[in-house]
């Protein structure tokens, strides 16, 4: 049971670690380029705010992934619904954050 659970939960646990790592790079080292790429990091509207907000949002997704890993022990169905909803919320929050502090969108109709 334990082994089978671990093999099932390996992916969400791994994702929690990876996302946690990126969140740390943003929140502690203020390394925007780790997620935007070398060029886009220079084009942000407000770099400081972007770093803080994107770091928090990635931490939020990492938490969602961790919750999924826990839920997988009880019900895979619940775990999938949870991560899907969490991801949609994350996407909406990310869009808001990016519009406020991220790369200016040249395609927007005036």
């Amino acid at each position, binding site marked *: 049971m334990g082994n089978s659970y671990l093999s*099932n939960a390996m*992916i*969400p646990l791994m*994702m929690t670690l*990876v*996302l946690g790592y*990126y969140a740390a790079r943003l929140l502690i080292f203020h390394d925007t380029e780790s*997620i*935007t*790429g*070398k*060029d886009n990091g220079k*084009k942000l509207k407000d770099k400081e705010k972007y770093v803080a907000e994107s770091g928090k949002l*990635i931490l939020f*997704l990492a938490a969602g*992934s961790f919750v*999924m890993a826990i839920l*997988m022990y009880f019900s*895979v*169905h619940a*775990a*999938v619904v949870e*991560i*899907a909803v969490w*991801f949609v919320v*994350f*996407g*909406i929050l*990310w*869009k808001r954050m*990016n519009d406020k502090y*991220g*790369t200016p*969108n*040249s*395609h927007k109709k005036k």
Partner: protein
Amino acid sequence: MGKKKLSFKEIMTNYGVIIIMVCLIVFTGITRPNFITTNNLTNILATMSFRLVIALGIAGCIITAGCDLSAGRMIGFGGCIAGTLLQKMDYSAKFYPDMKPLNIWLALLVVMLICAAFGLVTGFFIAYLNVPPFISTMAMMEIVYGICSIYTNATPLGGYVSEYTGLATGKFLGMSYLVWIAILVGVITWFIFNMTRHGKYMYAIGGNPQAAEVAGVPVKKTLIIIYAKAAAMYGLAGFMMGAKAGGASVQLGYGYEMEAIAACTIGGVSVTGGRGKVSSALVGVAVFEFLKAALQFLGVNAYAQYIALGVIIFIAISLDIRKYIARK
């Protein structure tokens, strides 16, 4: 117009990894007589076939300076869907006991459409919500894995109809049907990359997305199509793998996305975007698969093989970034 002569340093920076790997393959061929045999080469070609399909899908994403970490899980999902639709009627553990096996091409279409739908969602998150590709695709990886676990109840599938497994065992002009499918996919992808407006848009986005938008490139639509197309290709790869293995499980395709990204990088698809060809993916996959076979023939320990492959990926990506900095 004279051709610019490449210096030794430039040759090593551009082709160093490939040269060293080819040397190793030649060395293995000389020291291990069983390495270059028709049987072994046929086997490597069959393995290369679905690896190439995955690499071509990922190459499109990498050219736009993105990536797709959901590829491996999508392959597993595609393989499992195909498996459930193509089991023999008399198989004792049949997934849908009362359902007749579908026509294999219809099953392939179903697999590719379902996977493309997931790719469409990933593309939407990247294009419209501006979520970085590695985060979107990683989240999609989890979702697809979960859905696949629920769909199959985490049980392995087998007992396929002979028409399906015949794709791997059957041959045309001495080559497995899987190889012919890969060749066909390669030709179609080459056409899309080089002869269509969509291909030009893809390179423009990879070069400079802001400039591409200003120039009127439909960036969002193009990105969505790229990720949906890539996902459909992972579905196809899963279908091909299922035929070769004669079975599938949730674990099918585990870690293949990393190897596909590595193969693309080794072949010359730039992780910084805007550069890469079908031939780059082909060279990368060929070198990578022959190298893995060579390491096995040389009797290298399985864990040491992972280390060797990791070192190669690290060097290839470092050289690629160095080339990018030099270009700037």
